């Protein structure tokens, strides 16, 4: 399975994602420069975290117009896998591949720490290696992770099982104390209706090796691989 990692100026988790795919997941992977205008037979694209264009206007707002994004949108519309992590999630929102928008964390601070996520839907291409309501330990690191969507959008997400991860506490309770950033309904990750585009604020690439304290993030990469191999 061939992965591509998109590199925008200001991306800073591109090398971490690349490393995990290549060295931990042991799959072929290439970088894709944001100025490229076509994609090379990839099976899955990762839009990595970081601060594309410094996040200077709004997170993800400028990256969304990079030349490669047209191709990414086509790729997604053809049903191929796209996963946006942190800034990547924000870019997918700005690009309209996923619904909603990101606001600044309610605490008005950047937050970097390990959090717990509850897997709300284990039947997706990105979570089939998890079990329903499994609690994952994956870190976050962001300033704008306060997910927002209007009411009808929110009920649509619920009705279609598009909410994949919710922030919870160690015992799996989903409440405001377990919500690090004010995100609506503790939303940490969602997929699109078609089920091939995932956006998540936490960083699975930072929790894919036991040395770093957790391997729960690897489940997400393994799920994609499993889906692909089964096809």
């Amino acid at each position, binding site marked *: 399975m061939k992965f591509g990692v998109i590199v925008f100026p200001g991306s800073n988790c591109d090398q971490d994602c690349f490393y995990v795919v290549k060295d931990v997941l042991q799959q072929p992977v290439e970088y894709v420069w944001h100025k490229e205008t076509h994609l090379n037979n990839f099976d899955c694209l990762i839009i990595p975290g970081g601060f594309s264009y410094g996040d200077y*206007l*709004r997170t993800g*707002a*400028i990256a969304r*117009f990079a030349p490669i994004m047209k191709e990414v949108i086509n790729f997604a519309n053809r049903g191929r896998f796209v996963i946006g992590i942190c800034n990547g999630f924000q870019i997918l929102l*700005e690009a309209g591949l996923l619904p*909603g*928008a990101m*606001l*600044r964390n*309610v*605490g*008005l601070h950047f937050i970097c720490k390990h959090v717990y996520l509850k897997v709300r839907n284990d039947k997706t291409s990105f979570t089939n290696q998890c079990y329903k309501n499994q609690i994952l330990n994956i870190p976050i690191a962001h300033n704008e992770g306060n997910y*927002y*969507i*209007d009411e009808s959008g929110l009920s649509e997400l619920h009705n279609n099982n598009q909410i994949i991860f919710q922030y919870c506490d160690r015992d799996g309770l989903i409440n405001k104390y377990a919500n690090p950033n*004010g995100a609506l309904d503790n939303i940490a990750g969602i997929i699109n209706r078609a089920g091939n585009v995932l956006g998540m604020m936490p960083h699975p690439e930072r929790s894919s090796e036991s040395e770093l304290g957790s391997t729960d993030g690897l489940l997400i990469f393994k799920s994609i691989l499993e889906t692909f191999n089964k096809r």
Partner: protein
Amino acid sequence: MFEVEIYISLKKTVADPQGLTVKHAIESLGYQGINDLRMGKLVRLQLNLKDKKYAENKVNEMCKKLLVNPIIEEYSFQIKEI
């Protein structure tokens, strides 16, 4: 040539914790009577165009395409010939 000032702020329906924090900070300096405070962005630019209508259209376009996210933000602007 036009001078444009674009004012971008969070929609009224979206909470603005930063505005609240700044409000409290001002109040803690002893100022009373602040009813509501909201933080926003200001974009100032000069547009080298001739026609005002045309320039206004362009500014609207820029806002809609890039500068403003309509899910959470709203904007207004002023344009002045210089």
